[in-house]
């Protein structure tokens, strides 16, 4: 073995009889120092299990290595087979030789310990430092991942930091032991796109400056295009293709690789926006929002005095036609979901007007599809009961007509016949989201609010659900309010885009216009942060500027920001 890591015919199973319940079936690959391998695959492909078999964290999740070798060259030159290593030996490998970054920074740090403690313990364990030295080293580690004001941040508990900050802390922890191999398991999936760009920038910098080998696990092949050397595509526990990055991306050999490359929506600066616009002669308005503001009171002191307001949504105006999709994009905390909730009547607006074009046949013209189909379906109800609920809510009888509608909608969203008597857990994630869509359509609404409705789905499932949404839109003349953080998805589905920043729309217009010709600085920042295959050789910069606070004193009113016209129907907020 000449490289850093050599995995041969790795097999991993779970449960009491791991041989019979194998999820990784003979995976082989090599990694050299300073090299980055991207493992790409959808959920259930075995990519995370493969990675966690290397430092044997898979043991703690009930997994067993049932075959193969994992040869790893440690810093002292010794080569050992981690597949057969004892737990005592593995403890000397983890952290010191192999560092790991996880998907969910919010849950991957201990909530009761300060971030300082969690970084320092690695320095103390792996480098034998004293408490005082470890503290200095931890501060330097935070500075290395560009956390401003590092000395003070060391004393913070994880809940006091944002997701992007926490992921940087995770990287600082993983790097604290000076590992020769870094495993990053979907390190940016839970983060906003601008924060994602910063994390990718940090990892690319690390790759440039050190000879740390890296395994980057992702479901998004476009994400790793910027800095991976080699790509390995996995499907159902097997490697279907691996090779140098450019070869795999430009000349994929396996049909599944080609399928993945096609299924992943690639952001293309507005070039793939929809051309079937619904505006123009005779279009009916489905939704008209004028000057919407939603504020949450901040109370403080003994008497819970009303001391200020969170201006979650401030002066949002837009209209939406039948048969049209408006994409609302922005980062978490920007107010996109609050806007959606206010339109559904789930939040009381502080001011503003929300009008729907049609009252709808049941007086409920707006319906909603939520992000997580697992959490938004009651596991104790059958599909029939789930679909009946909108009817019950408006006081309708479940008669033959209602049943016919259920059956018709199920067929329309391509769920199998005979689904009515089954329970949600019997369906896959994509099928469950179809079920949620069918439920939302029961009352024949004119507007569907889709709040990150495809974000939790695998890319190929996501593509099919998006196709279904487009078909349904044409058939029922539906208006979609599509809330998302994913620029590539919104480019495909939306006719128009509203960019939301700090509670306000900063730019709104036709998708192709806004994405090809962004006028507001935040829109530009957002677009620049989207990774794409075409831009694979451009580097991400690490920006550490913070989002402004939305808490304002009582009685505060925003200064009116004038709109500037950038073309027909394309407006943006003037910047000072």
């Amino acid at each position, binding site marked *: 073995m000449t490289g850093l890591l050599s995995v041969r015919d790795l097999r991993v199973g779970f449960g009491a009889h791991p041989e019979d319940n194998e999820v990784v079936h003979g995976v082989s690959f090599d990694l050299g120092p300073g090299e980055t391998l991207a493992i790409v695959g959808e959920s259930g492909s075995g990519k995370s299990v493969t990675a966690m078999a290397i430092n044997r964290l898979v043991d703690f999740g009930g997994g067993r290595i049932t075959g193969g070798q994992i040869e790893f060259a440690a810093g002292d030159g010794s080569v050992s087979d981690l597949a057969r290593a004892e737990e005592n030996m593995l403890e000397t490998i983890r952290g010191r030789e192999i560092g790991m970054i996880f998907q969910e920074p919010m849950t991957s740090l201990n909530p009761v310990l300060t971030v300082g403690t969690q970084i320092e313990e690695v320095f103390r*364990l792996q480098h034998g430092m004293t408490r005082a030295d470890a503290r200095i080293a931890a501060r330097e580690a935070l500075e290395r991942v560009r956390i401003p004001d590092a000395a003070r941040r060391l004393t913070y508990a994880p*809940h006091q930091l944002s997701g992007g900050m926490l992921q940087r802390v995770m990287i600082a922890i993983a790097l604290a032991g000076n590992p020769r191999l870094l495993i990053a398991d979907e390190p940016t999936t839970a983060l906003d796109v601008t924060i994602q760009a910063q994390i990718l920038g940090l990892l690319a910098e690390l790759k440039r400056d050190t000879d740390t080998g890296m395994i980057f696990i992702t479901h998004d092949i476009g994400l790793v295009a910027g800095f991976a050397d080699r790509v390995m595509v996995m499907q159902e526990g097997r490697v279907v293709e691996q090779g140098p990055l450019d070869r795999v991306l430009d000349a994929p050999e396996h049909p599944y690789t080609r399928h993945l490359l096609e299924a992943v929506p690639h952001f293309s600066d507005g070039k793939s926006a929809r051309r079937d616009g619904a505006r123009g002669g005779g279009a009916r308005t489905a939704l008209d929002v004028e000057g919407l503001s939603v504020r949450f009171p901040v109370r403080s002191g003994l008497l819970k005095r009303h001391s200020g307001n969170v201006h979650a949504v401030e002066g949002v105006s837009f209209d939406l036609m039948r048969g049209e999709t408006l994409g609302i994009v922005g980062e978490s905390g920007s107010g996109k979901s609050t806007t959606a909730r206010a339109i559904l009547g789930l939040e009381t607006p502080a001011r503003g007007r929300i009008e729907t074009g049609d009252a709808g046949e049941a007086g409920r013209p707006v319906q909603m599809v939520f992000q997580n189909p697992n959490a938004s379906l009651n596991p104790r109800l059958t599909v029939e009961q789930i679909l009946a609920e909108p009817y019950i809510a408006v006081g309708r009888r479940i008669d033959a007509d209602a049943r016919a509608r259920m059956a018709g909608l199920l067929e329309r969203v391509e769920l199998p016949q005979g689904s009515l008597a089954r329970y949600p857990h019997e369906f896959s994630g994509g099928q469950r989201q179809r079920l949620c869509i069918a439920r939302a359509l029961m009352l024949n609404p004119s507007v569907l609010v889709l709040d990150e409705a495809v974000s939790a789905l695998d890319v190929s499932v996501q593509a099919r659900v998006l196709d279904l949404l487009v078909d349904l839109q044409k058939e029922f003349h539906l208006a979609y309010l599509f809330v998302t953080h994913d620029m590539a998805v919104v480019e495909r589905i939306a006719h128009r885009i509203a960019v939301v920043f700090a509670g306000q729309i900063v730019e709104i217009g036709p998708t192709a216009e806004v994405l090809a010709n962004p006028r507001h600085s935040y829109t530009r920042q957002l677009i620049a942060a989207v990774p794409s295959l075409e831009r694979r050789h451009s580097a991400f910069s690490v920006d550490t500027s913070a989002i402004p606070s939305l808490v304002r004193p009582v009685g505060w009113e925003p200064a009116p920001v004038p709109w500037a016209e950038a073309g027909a129907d394309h407006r943006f907020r003037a910047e000072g």
Partner: protein
Amino acid sequence: MSYPLRRLLVFPLVMLGVSVFVFIAIRLVPGDAITAMLGTESGLLTPAQREALTAYFGLDQNWFVQFWRWLSRVLQGDLGISTTYGKPVMTIILEHFPLTLELAVLSMLIAIGIGLPAGIFAATRKDKPSDMAVRVIAMVGQSTPGFVVGLLLIFVLSVGFGVLPQMGTFVPLTEGISRNLAQMILPALTLGTAFAAAVIRISRSAMLDILREDFVRTARSKGLSRRRVIWRHALPNALIPVVTLSGVEFGYLLGGAVLVEQIFALPGLGRVVLDAIQQRDYALVQGSVLFIAFNFMVVNLLVDLAYAALDPRIRFETK
């Protein structure tokens, strides 16, 4: 204003509520204090004598006047005179409370000292024989009534082996630590058994939940030893339900453990309250219930402060 201070402001309100409730409840019990106090001899009283006694204890007034008089004395630190003992209620409580407090503390030490390590041990060996054994012991410990455990302990240790004096006149802690502990160990074990069983069960399940958390996986990925992962990373997160349970149990124990005091002939607060109810000793019932309620609130406050110390996400100021 800080959270503990705000909580202290609520104390008087709760105490007032408890007072009103107890005041009415005890008077709704049939029978009167004078009859109960004198027993069969109460038949020998002349109506005038009975009236004089009733007036002496202030029982001739209507309930509002009685409550007002009692309350205004309580506010001056005077809980009144017991009809059965003929002594100030406060003196009686202070005589019996040290024993109850000692019993509660010993039981809790036993419960946590045995229960917490056993629960963690079982959680880290989930579904192995040792985990099964701990779970069976916890189940038996929790479902066996305290008096059965107590009687069994007396029989095995005192009668069977002749070790440990089981009864006799109670020796307070201040008059001989070893003699006191010899008397207290059996009742403390009796109370501690069920308490420990509950702690085992709750700490085991809390620990199992925490061990599945992402941050435990992170801790392992750092190369930390198994011991440090469990004690430094998992345990502080698993302690909150244990603290909740222990606080509630400890609060109950401060109100006295009637059954165990009875079995081991210990003059604790539980028996005082029981006797006071039987004797319609209004002042003693009211005074001791007020005292117990106060203790309970203090324990609850300490539990809340423990939460904040354990978990930085719990910040009372922002609530």
